[in-house]
């Protein structure tokens, strides 16, 4: 592995009831988070190829961890999202190098298909900073019931020279969705949008 990983965390959240109404089956979201050393912390480096390669590695690893935490096969995943939190001695561009060029392809290898753009967010912050990972349907970005987000944080990460890389996967949309729009049963799945 190119990535020097200090720790990996997984989170699984199940919602059983909402406003007193049962959610059956419960909606479930998982996030897998890796805390890695930032090889470029503390200096300006022009060529960010190494972080792009790390993004590819982590895409596969975190996707596997997330679906394993849900106990499902990759293709059973319904929505996804990714995010990175760069420690104080790094640049936002380091997050971009991990997330955008190669990570998505590796994630899709595990999840099968994934025609839609993987929604993403990034920021810089200190230990305990909260990262909100956006979520959207993996085959059709306009599926309204699956627009969501998941918050993750680790009290001891990222340290100044680290990056926290997160991938979220669900096997369901929001609990009790009722604001209309495209439903998952209407997906054509050709253009990643509808």
């Amino acid at each position, binding site marked *: 592995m190119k990535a020097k990983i*200090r720790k990996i965390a*997984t989170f699984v959240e199940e919602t059983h009831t909402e406003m007193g109404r049962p959610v059956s089956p419960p909606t479930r979201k998982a996030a897998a988070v890796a805390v890695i050393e930032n090889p470029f912390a503390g200096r300006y480096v022009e060529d960010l190829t190494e972080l792009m390669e790390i993004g590819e590695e982590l895409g596969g690893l975190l996707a596997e961890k997330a679906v394993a935490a849900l106990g499902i096969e990759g293709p059973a995943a319904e929505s996804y999202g990714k995010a990175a939190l760069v420690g104080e001695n790094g640049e936002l561009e380091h997050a971009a190098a991990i997330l955008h060029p190669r990570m998505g392809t590796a994630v899709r290898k595990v999840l099968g298909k994934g025609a839609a753009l993987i929604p993403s967010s990034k920021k810089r912050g200190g230990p305990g900073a909260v990262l909100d990972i956006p979520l959207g349907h993996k085959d059709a970005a306009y599926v309204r019931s699956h627009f969501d987000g998941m918050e993750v944080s680790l009290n001891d990460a990222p340290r100044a020279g680290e990056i926290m890389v997160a991938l979220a996967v669900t096997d369901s949309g929001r609990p009790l969705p009722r604001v209309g729009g495209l439903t998952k049963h209407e997906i054509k799945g050709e253009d990643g949008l509808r």
Partner: protein
Amino acid sequence: MPEVQVRKRLITVEEIFHEGGQPAEKPLKRGAIVAVIANPFAGRYVEDIAGFMDDLKPLGLAMARDLIAALGGDPAAIEGYGKGAIVGSAGELEHGALWHVPGGYAMREALGGAKAIVPSTKKVGGPGARLDVPVTHINASYVRSHFDAMEVGIPDSPRADEMAVILVMTTGPRIHARVGGLKASEIKGEDGLR
């Protein structure tokens, strides 16, 4: 006594490879399970609450078993434990104390008998409140390498009339434990302390 109503659960697992030193041969795993339940006593003073402890026992046992499963499935691999509760703002600290008996009973039952007292903490807090759950060795409280803690919380919990009940387990010592004291290999295992 009222039925236990679960709104959501969170399972989180950290795998720790190193903390700046040599990566350990076997990564340390720390896991937490949180169940967000309705507080049947919220919003008023109720004198007689103790019966709810029995109602919580099946929930505790299911949580302990699911946490062991998330940490790899082998009860014999669990070396440290702790528990805690966050009571929503319409409840009192005493409601959190209801978790002592069922939480401890559940982990002992699922681990096949553990001798040490289960360390614990509790507080009243709003949604997103974090709790640092203390952790000690399951058979001897004085084992210095196993004194640890895990921070847990859920962004939307507990609501005012809810409480979050928490179990934590670990699979070994702190990753670079080196401050001496009683070792796990020296446990007599008679009194739960040494």
